[in-house]
């Protein structure tokens, strides 16, 4: 209808300067967020703000180690975000497992399951390092290189295969039903009362 390519620079500028964060803090990096958000480093200067609902969020911060249990939620939340969406991984745990390299319940390579646009090394990275990462992702957005969401669409089979290998086929339904026998039992008891 309208040729939006003409306005692409403006839109990219808006995308860059208005990144809403999913407030989904995993691991120990969540505690690095308050200084970033509050008066010390004040991320709101760049138009970033924490946002509890993924439907209207752009930036997904993975702040620390990821367990399989969390990864399921991360994938579901990530898929709920509307395109374009960006992922920023904090610290060494999402990179290679970090100090949890031999733990049965910590994911070793996050980018096998969802695309990561920018990874920040460190255990934990200091707020300055996180700011640097955010600067990096802003540059990537402006030049159109932050294309994790495109990669996820294009290589969906690869990501799906890795997810299914880890969790087993049909893990969404299985996880959703996991508690149902127990919840139904409680429901029944409540009704009997």
């Amino acid at each position, binding site marked *: 209808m309208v040729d939006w390519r003409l306005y692409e620079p403006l839109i990219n500028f808006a995308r860059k300067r208005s990144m809403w964060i999913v407030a989904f803090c995993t691991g120990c990096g969540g505690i690095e967020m308050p200084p970033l958000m509050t008066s010390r480093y004040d991320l709101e200067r760049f138009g970033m703000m924490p946002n509890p609902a993924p439907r209207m969020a752009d930036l997904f911060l993975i702040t620390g180690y990821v367990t*399989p249990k969390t990864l399921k939620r991360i994938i579901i939340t990530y898929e709920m975000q509307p395109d374009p969406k960006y992922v920023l991984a904090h610290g060494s745990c999402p990179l290679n497992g970090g100090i949890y390299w*031999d733990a049965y319940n910590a994911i070793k390579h996050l980018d096998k399951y969802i695309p990561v646009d920018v990874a920040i090394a460190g255990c934990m990275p200091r707020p300055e390092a996180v700011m640097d990462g955010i600067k990096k992702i802003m540059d990537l957005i402006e030049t159109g290189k932050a294309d994790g969401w495109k990669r996820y669409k294009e290589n969906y089979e690869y990501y799906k295969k890795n997810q299914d290998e*880890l969790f087993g086929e049909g893990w969404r339904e299985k996880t959703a039903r996991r*508690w149902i026998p*127990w919840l139904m039992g409680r429901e029944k008891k409540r009704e009997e009362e």
Partner: protein
Amino acid sequence: MAEEVKASWSKGEEIVRMLLEKAPYAEGTVRRERRLEFKVPADRIVDFLRTAKANGFELLLQITAVDWLKEGEIELVYQLFSISHGTHAMVKTRLPRDEARISTVMDIYPVAETYERDAHEFFKVTFEGNPKLEMPWILEDEDREVGVSHRKDFDMLGYVKRKYKLLDRFDEDKENYVI
């Protein structure tokens, strides 16, 4: 084992003596100030905890388990706390490793339900009378099916390598791994 430092906490000794009078089947010592230790046979644990609760140990803080592989036993440690005496107490009991069954203490300390589920999931101890033992707890279903446990005869590292398809860059014979 380092040389035991005999504690001299007279109040603690009094508490131990008072409890042991009522529960002669147990052994009790004072580890140090505010740390008491009791050893109870597995079949009397309910009696002992009931006695303890009646004598000022109001809280159950935790139930932990230790796997003694060589001795073929699993040690359960019930950590009690007394507000009135101001002291911890570790109540230890041992179960055979391959037949780890013990009675639940839910009716004495209701909070035990959660800790018993924990010990059941990771050390395969069966607490008879706890209705929620089979309820999903920390482990994912696929881990459960494989039988992940913290018992020492479970090959955790091998399982991790298999599960996450790690490149086999480390050797289990080495002392330190570099990744």
